[in-house]
Structures are given as C-alpha cells and as structure tokens.
C-alpha cells in the first residue's frame, strides 16, 4: 500500500470528499469543459478574469476520479488572485512535476499544496487525471471556447 498512500495522500482524499469551489460561477466570463473520454471524467471550469488579467474567481463542476477531482479542487484554491501569466507558469510547473521521472527529485518549489501530486509520477496512466482541470483552466483563460482533453 506504500505507493498507494504516496498517491492517495490525505490532502487528496480530503479534497476528493469535500471539493472546494465546487459550484457553478454565475458571473463567470470564461468557461471550458474538460473531458477524459476513456475514463468518463467530465468537468466544467468557470473563471472570472478581471480587465487587467487577474483570475478573481475560479470554480468547477463535474464528475471524476479522486485524482481529477482533488486536482481541480486544489488548483482552484491555488490560482485564485493570480495573473494569467502566473497561472500559465503554474500550469507548466505542475505539468513538469507530474510528468517527471519518479527517479528524479520532485521539483515542488512554488507549488505549495500541489506538491501532494508528486505521487502521480509512479502511476503514469493517472497523469491525465491530474492534469485535466489544468487543461480546462488553460482553455478557459485562453478562451478557446472548446473542450480540453488530456488523452
């Protein structure tokens, strides 16, 4: 169970059970769907971005596995009040963390609570679950107006 506890850390289990910012954002000005067709994961990401390019509010709704739900929940807390540029950097850092080799030291600088997702590296097939919300967020803030997929 060691690898599993590494993956399913208490923070992840907690956010899976009680996802934060789990609601429709009525005054959202950005929105995108994220889908993993193979898993059946489906979420919608809502964001309100200010005129000067700051993410004032971000929420999500949908169904998914513990990893995708916890990742969405932690992400919404993490990116709130950041500039679009900062969010883009966060996306790249998070992506690097979960796709790096398990044998390498995990680069968790600046990722705060998101460091709990380092365990995903041991389970490559779950990377797409961890990154689904991030892809949807990027699609929403770039306002591509399309469905983000991680597979």
């Amino acid at each position: 169970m060691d690898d599993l506890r590494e993956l399913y850390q208490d923070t992840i289990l907690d956010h899976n059970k009680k996802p934060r910012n789990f609601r429709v954002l009525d005054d959202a000005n950005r929105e995108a769907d994220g889908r993993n067709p193979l898993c059946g994961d489906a979420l919608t990401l809502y964001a309100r971005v200010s005129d000067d390019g700051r993410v004032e509010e971000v929420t999500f709704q949908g169904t998914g596995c513990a990893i995708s739900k916890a990742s969405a929940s932690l992400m919404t807390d993490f990116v709130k009040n950041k500039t679009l540029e900062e969010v883009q950097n966060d996306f790249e850092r998070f992506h690097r963390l979960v796709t790096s080799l398990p044998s390498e030291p995990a680069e968790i600088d600046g990722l705060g609570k998101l460091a709990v997702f380092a365990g995903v590296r041991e389970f490559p097939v779950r990377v797409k679950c961890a990154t689904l919300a991030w892809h949807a967020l990027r699609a929403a803030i770039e306002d591509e107006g399309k469905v983000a997929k991680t597979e």
Partner: protein
Amino acid sequence: MKFDAEQIRKDFPILETRMRGHTLTYLDSAASAQKPRAVIDAISDFYSSHYANIHRGVYQLSAEATLRYEEVRSQIAKFIGAPDPREVIFVRNATEAINLVARSWGEKEIGRGDEIVLTTMEHHANIVPWQMLAERVGATLRVAAIFDDGVLDVDHLVSLLGRRTRLLAFSAVSNALGTINPVSELTAIARERGITTLVDGAQAVPHQPVDVAALGCDFYAFSGHKVFGPSGAGVLYGRLPLLESMPPFLGGGDMIENVSFKGTSYAPVPQKFEAGTPDIASVIGLGAAIDYLEAIGMDRIATYEHSLLVHATERLLTIPGLRIIGTAKEKAAVISFVLDDAHPHDVGTVLDGEGIAIRTGHHCAQPLMNRMGVPATARASLTFYNTRDDIDRLVAALHKTRELFH
C-alpha cells in the same frame, strides 16, 4: 472429472509474474486473454523451423507453411460449426471482421432509406462501422432497448424490424455486462423477415461451444486474442453464397485471379478477402489455442466459469456499497460494478497496487454506460485459469479500497 484450475494455471507462464510485489491476479481476460505455453511455443517453433510466405513459393517450406495455415482454417471451421472451411476468413480481429462486412456487403446491399438494427449493449466495434456505413449510403441506425438488469428487450427489437430493415447486428455476449443474448431466437426472427444477421461473438467464443450453423446467423465475428491465441489474427465467418456475392474488401496480392491494367478478376472465397501477406504466425498460434481449448473441452470450461461467476457474485455482494451493473440471469463470467465512495479509476489503481488487473472505464460501450446511468464501471472478467483465490484477493482489495475512500 473435477476441473483442475490450479493445474491449468501452470500452462500460462505469465500467471507466475510478480506485479507490484504481488503475484499477478489477472481478471481482464474479456479485454484480452493470456496465452498458454502451447501457443507461445507454436509461434516460436513456426518462426524457428517452418516460416515462409504462403500461397506463393513452389519450394517445400512455403508449401508446408501454406498447408499449416489452411489446416487452421479447417480446424476453426470445425470448432465453430461452419459447414465449409471457405466460410472462414482470416482478419486481424472482430473489429476488422465487422468492418469488412460493412464495407463489402454493406455498401452493396444497403442503400438510402434502409435500416440497420443494433442493440444498446453493443461494443463500439459493432456500432461505429454501421454508423460510418449509414452516413456513406444514407441509411438509418435503429437501436433496440435493454431493461435495467441489462437484458435485451426482444419485443422492442422486433418492433424495430420493418420493411426497410436490411441487417440485424448484435453481440452474442455483452462485453461490459456479461448478458448472454438469445442468438438463435434473434436470427430466426430476422430470417423470417429476410433480414441478414451479423453476430459479434468476441465474448462468446472463448467461453462456450459455438455452432454457427445451428445459430443460423449469416455472419459471425470473433478475435483470436480473446480465445487465448496471439493478437493479430481474428475470424469472420460468413455463409458461402453471401461471401461469394460480395465484392472484395482490400485489394492487392493474394486476392486476385488475373491482373492487367484493363481490369482484374478476383480469386475465389476465401482468398478474395485476404489481400496481402496475413499474420501467418498468429494464425498458426490461433490453431494451437483451439487445440488447447478442445483438449480441455468448451462444455467443461463453460460449467467451471459459471460456478466461478456465481461464487464471485455472492462474494462481491457482501461488500457494502458495491453495486453490480448487469444482473441478467443468463450471464457470462463478466462482473461490472461500481463502489459508492470510489470512482472506478481509483478502484483500478488501488487494485493494481495489489497486483490485481481489472478493466475500468466505459469498456468501449459509451451508449450502454449512458443507458445504465454510470460514467464508467470497474469490470472483473473471469476465465478458466481464474480460481476462488483470485476472487478472495479481489474481495480483500475492494475492502481496502473502501476503507481508503470512506
């Protein structure tokens, strides 16, 4: 004679493999079955001592390879009750078999305004080729409903059959639910109305005796890799007059009689449908797999698997919050389920941590998942190399899963 699954397990080298520190518990044979040593050895021996291209050389090696390849055709005809070996077409898998029928028979026989009847429980392989055909020719798909327990609503299916119905295509056994469909009843209903039938037998052939002549179907498709043979060889059975009336599927070498730039005449069935060098070694391996199955006996396999299914179902239902999706009385050894607190993917990952391989997701049957009201399920599929110990390990791991997510 008692069925000795422990002894049979020794025929499958991969079952000795360690997975994340545990002995592998393989419960995903409905996705692809593991291979007995007899199959692995047959492929190795064929490449080591007997390999050459078929239907070409005048030299002995090629003549012998051709003979072995054609012997497997006859062997398979006998195994599935096809009256004539020419009715057995080698393809890559059931998917290719269905696409062959959709392209060749479908484009010839189905036109604008015609109807194709399917069922809600079909695998994407028995949906998408028909959908593509319908789009090309302007035909319509009609879909027979199922009940909440996963049983086909035959009355609804019959109500869909009309003047314009050209084809009824359905699975013998549902890959996602395990439901066994009343194949001969359905083919009889179709025959009365002059409707052609295609049976997707991918989940039936590995688990029960199959007699296509008795079933009365026009086409029957299955994959070799689910019948304990290698991946890369599958079978399309078709009634000879139908196959003879159909245009070729793929053009190329081996399927011709005479080629000139003015025009080409085609080889007779079955060569007409086997363009290019096939996966010869996989066909040889498939022959070894059929030998292996016949030595055990399909009847004995079906009886053993049924007892395992009953046992596993009872045990799984002791887990609080576990719900089985697909509870037909006539069921193959496939158990799809969901847990209250854990998403199927998390179930799959926790089980993987215990060395247990199950399938999670939509099982290539998205319309069926929608009908059953679940985005995905976890699926344990059993076969004759599984034992009660495997079920015990599965149940213990599901208890652990529950504790983790509760």
